[in-house]
């Protein structure tokens, strides 16, 4: 059982652990800026100290030796004996940690159905936003969180095959480009000061709200499926779609759908069997948030 909502719990000199809901993480690092960013982002999550099962004991450290260490220092993500990701610039350690944990979840956690989706909820009623990258799901999820929804996930919807419920996998929300100043404005003090310049543009990290972290051990059932599609200047359009159509979207966005074979079909179908399903096209965040609120109010 994880501890108080006190943030990453120090286990020994260089290791600290915390819960993200469905999983416990323990990080070993020499990098003070990584410790600080983790303390900021996960400061309200339950800690996971000694005597707690850790799903992903990982290490993020500098691995260069010699002159390289000084000029363009890099850090590596390591889990056990493996280094599955390319090294990243030292400054990007917090991003690398997020990516590394995502990798570890996706590689192994086939005891759950894993969807590429954001998940928000009112109480125990969840809205799943399945979508590939670039659809604006992270921005929409962040906006909904800012307007009172609790966040369960930005990246992975984690569904328990036995119950069909979604379990929080509560990590940093990844904001891109214009969403960064937008969220700084709406949620002052909640966005990590650093902005990371990557090959995919600028990325910022938003921490989950206190309310989201408090409910980290509360699963939710899927009440709505809303596929977001963002395009600049697009008019708001909310379409109620047949559940079987939404099922296809959900299944296409399920990383390990085929691994669960026939069972995957039944689990997903049962999990969303009572859900109202929509496609939401928008060009304006506030209009989209209002639309989701209306969907929730109608239900």
């Amino acid at each position: 059982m994880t501890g108080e909502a006190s943030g990453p719990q120090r286990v020994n000199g260089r290791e600290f652990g915390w819960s993200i809901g469905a999983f416990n993480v323990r990080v070993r690092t020499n990098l003070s800026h990584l410790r600080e960013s983790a303390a900021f982002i996960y400061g309200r999550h339950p800690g996971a100290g000694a005597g707690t099962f850790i799903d992903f004991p990982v290490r993020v450290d500098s691995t260069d030796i010699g002159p390289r260490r000084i000029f363009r220092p890099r850090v590596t993500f390591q889990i056990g004996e493996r280094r599955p990701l390319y090294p990243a610039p030292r400054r990007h350690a917090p991003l690398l940690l997020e990516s590394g944990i995502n990798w570890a979840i996706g590689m192994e956690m086939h005891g759950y159905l894993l969807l590429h989706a954001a998940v928000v909820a009112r109480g125990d009623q969840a809205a799943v936003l399945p979508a590939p990258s670039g659809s604006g799901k992270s921005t929409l999820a962040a906006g909904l969180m800012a307007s009172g929804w609790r966040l369960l996930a930005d990246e992975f919807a984690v569904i328990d095959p036995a119950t069909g419920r979604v379990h929080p996998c509560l990590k940093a929300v990844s904001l891109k480009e214009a969403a960064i100043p937008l969220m700084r404005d709406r949620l002052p003090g909640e966005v990590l000061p650093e902005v990371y310049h990557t090959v995919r543009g600028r990325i910022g990290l938003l921490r989950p709200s206190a309310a989201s972290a408090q409910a980290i051990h509360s699963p939710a059932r899927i009440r709505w499926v809303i596929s977001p599609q963002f395009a600049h200047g697009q008019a708001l359009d909310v379409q109620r779609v047949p559940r079987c159509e939404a099922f296809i979207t959900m299944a296409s966005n399920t990383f390990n759908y085929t691994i669960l074979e026939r069972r995957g079909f039944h689990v997903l179908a049962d999990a969303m069997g009572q859900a109202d399903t929509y496609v939401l096209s928008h060009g304006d965040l506030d209009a989209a948030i209002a639309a989701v609120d209306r969907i929730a109010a109608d239900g």
Partner: protein
Amino acid sequence: MLPLTVQVLRDPARALRLGPDDWTTLVLEARDAGLLARLGVRLEKHGLLTEIPDAPRRHLEGMARYAAKLHTDIRTEVGFVRDALASRGIDLVLMKGAAYVAADSPAAEGRIFEDIDLLVPEPQIAAAEDALVEAGWTRPALDDHDTRYYYEWMHQIPPLMHRERGSLVDVHHNIVPRTAKPRIDADKLLTQATPTSEPGIYTLSPTDRVLHSAVHLFNDGDFTSGLRDLSDMDLMLTALGADENAAELLGGRAGDLGLTRPAYDALALCRHLFETPFPCAGDGFERRRGRITNWLLHTCFVHAVQPLTTSKGSWPNSARLALYIRGHVLKMPLHFLIPHLAYKTYRSALMKP
């Protein structure tokens, strides 16, 4: 002290007595060893998967499911490979992971692997490659050195990847490199190939599968999957050991192929780690190796299969390095090895991003 993974494989009920920190260690170890799926399947077989804590169970159950799906896909894929080779009149003889699955070997239990390994008579290698390319597998882009490495020095053409399905096929004409000593007569392996329940799909014989696993581990020097390989051998030897003539069958075949040393090493290590029930200790196997060399080597083997992350000290690393060097020396005589290693060092220095 045996790794926790080994303890639980030997005595699955041990899983019921593990605390949270033990589970963290076990999942971490087993993940690195490539044995997470096998653990999951083993506990499931003993009806224990539902008795362990929820959080670690997700890992074991998840990987057991992954392995099951992998095996389903492999069986389909192997059918395509057979059809491709049949177009040139070449029989499909599988080895390693794909063979375990096709033959329903005990070593298929939770076995995870990437490639489909097959054995083809040396004169038919080019035809096999052509047949596979025609059926959609592609050759990787290699530079001249790598091309020579594969075609002239080692015992395989480079792995081929299917351009649509992504499956990987490794075509071998022997189980040891052309440059290695001792030489093995691949024809002997092919003539003993056994049929499976699928028409046109053969594997190395059960005895040869063990010997291949043994020579691959002990002579090749790559101990990254050492614990997994020994677990495979434990499962296969246990099955072979049921026969009352097991010792003669294994010993005879090992002698015939010139593989008595790897066979001896396999039995000794499996006995040490898993208490594998095989009718003889392997002492009767002619090993032609001094007692001290033998002791040194076996100590190295035992250290090399220890998990790196949960063991104290640097013995596992040192042991793996020593065996890696030994493997290279056994694989390639020095007049090939030194230019090869020099070239690899030069190339990786160039490639630093």
